[in-house]
């Protein structure tokens, strides 16, 4: 059973072009599935719809076999995400932020302290653990956000451009964390602009363009960047031909 199964997802914001066009996508246990595309391609909207943050116009999303509208606390406690903004309240210390994330994600009260200590160590947050989050750099705020997404040991991770604002050591750290999580059977859907990074971590690479899935790339293939641009260009040409054909008929 897939951890995440998206079928026929369509969505359009009011008076605007469609942002998702019949999208199908799945992420299985132990798989790091990368989603790549230009700005505005629909990556973030797809991830939001997958996590119930917006209601799509059509299509379905299942998490561990459960439809998202019917997902209960038991389902959500198996999901971790970093979408848009990290879970960071500036008035709280790093440790308090992680304590809050753990409690909200359903970690039993007696196990929260150990869970927080574990992610503080895993994300190399020890030097800042007792500092207020308002004093952190952007990169360390992102690390706290990643730690918040991991603190409850989720079985599905959804990360929207997680390497944004991370320094090189943070990028390497995230790569190792994702590989380790996947080897433990965690499913991960990760969007990124960094194709070289994607090639290092992903088992599958799906290309989304103008709201539609236009194909997959081999993460071990030669020159991923060139293959990506060729695929996007071919999709644009096919769309232009289709429009011209419609106008002629």
């Amino acid at each position: 059973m897939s951890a995440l199964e998206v079928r026929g997802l369509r969505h359009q914001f009011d008076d605007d072009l469609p942002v998702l066009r019949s999208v199908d996508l799945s992420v299985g246990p132990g798989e790091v599935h990368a989603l790549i595309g230009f700005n505005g391609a629909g990556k973030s909207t797809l991830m939001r719809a997958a996590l119930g943050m917006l209601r799509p116009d059509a299509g379905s999303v299942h998490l561990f076999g459960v439809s998202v509208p019917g997902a209960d606390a038991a389902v959500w406690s198996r999901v971790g995400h970093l979408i848009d903004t990290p879970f960071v309240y500036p008035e709280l210390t790093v440790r308090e932020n992680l304590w809050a994330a753990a409690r909200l994600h359903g970690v039993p009260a007696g196990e929260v302290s150990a869970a927080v200590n574990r992610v503080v160590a895993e994300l190399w947050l020890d030097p800042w653990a007792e500092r207020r989050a308002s004093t952190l750099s952007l990169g360390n705020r992102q690390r706290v956000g990643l730690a918040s997404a991991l603190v409850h040991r989720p079985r599905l991770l959804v990360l929207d451009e997680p390497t944004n604002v991370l320094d090189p050591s943070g990028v390497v750290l995230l790569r190792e964390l994702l590989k380790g999580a996947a080897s433990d059977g965690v499913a991960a859907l990760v969007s990124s602009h960094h194709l070289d990074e994607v090639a290092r971590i992903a088992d599958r690479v799906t290309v989304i363009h103008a709201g539609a899935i236009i194909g997959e790339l081999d993460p071990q293939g030669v020159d991923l960047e060139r293959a990506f641009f060729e695929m996007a260009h071919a999709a644009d040409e096919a769309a232009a031909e289709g429009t011209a054909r419609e106008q002629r008929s």
Partner: protein
Amino acid sequence: MSPAYAVEALKLRRSRVVLVATLALVFVPPGMARGLLTVAEQGGNDPATLKAQAMLPGGGWAGYLGGLMQIYATAGVVGVGIVVGWCFGREYADRTVVSLYASATPREAVASAKLALMTLWSTAVGLAMVFVTWLFGLATGLGSPDDAAWRTVARLTALAVLSGLLALPVAAAASVGRGYLPAIGALLVLVVLAQVATIAGIGRWWPWSVPAMWAMGPESGMPTISSATLLLAPVVALVSAVLTIRWWRHAEVV
């Protein structure tokens, strides 16, 4: 304590906004009221003295408490409203609300915890303000309150608690408007409409005017208002709480 309550309580304890608002609401209105009474009791024809005498319903405890009611009727709603607007609006302005989706703790539980804690906090602040009022009065030579003064203290206590409840609709404005500014705008509208309703003679039916008019009473030139009308305040709080929780349950991320 449930996760939503525990997390929201921690955020409130660590917040400087809540700390400053608590100190301001507990100490500033009694201090201002005592200052007004001092000016009023100076005597003479000084314009400030004449103005203070016109504002207060008398001298001693009656003047002190009467002045305080006028101040807290507005300050209570504004002060509590700012904190309520911050509590809800910050989640949207800082985008932390996105992290509250796809979580084992439903968003409506988070909203319910915020509303319950805001009610508890504003009630505690109101009661603390009344206690400080009593201390200020004793410490500044007003002596022990007589029976009439104690009855006024009871009305002040009701006003302080109800003012907090009347600020809860700001939570709905901050949530639907997704930020601080709609909350502040709604707060201004509530305060201005309360003044207008009182002046226009319909204050006895306008929930945001009723507690102050009832508390100040006929001795301050207000019409007699039935105590039952005070129930408008909890009704307003309940309706706004239901609307806010429904919004948090159904709203999408934009």
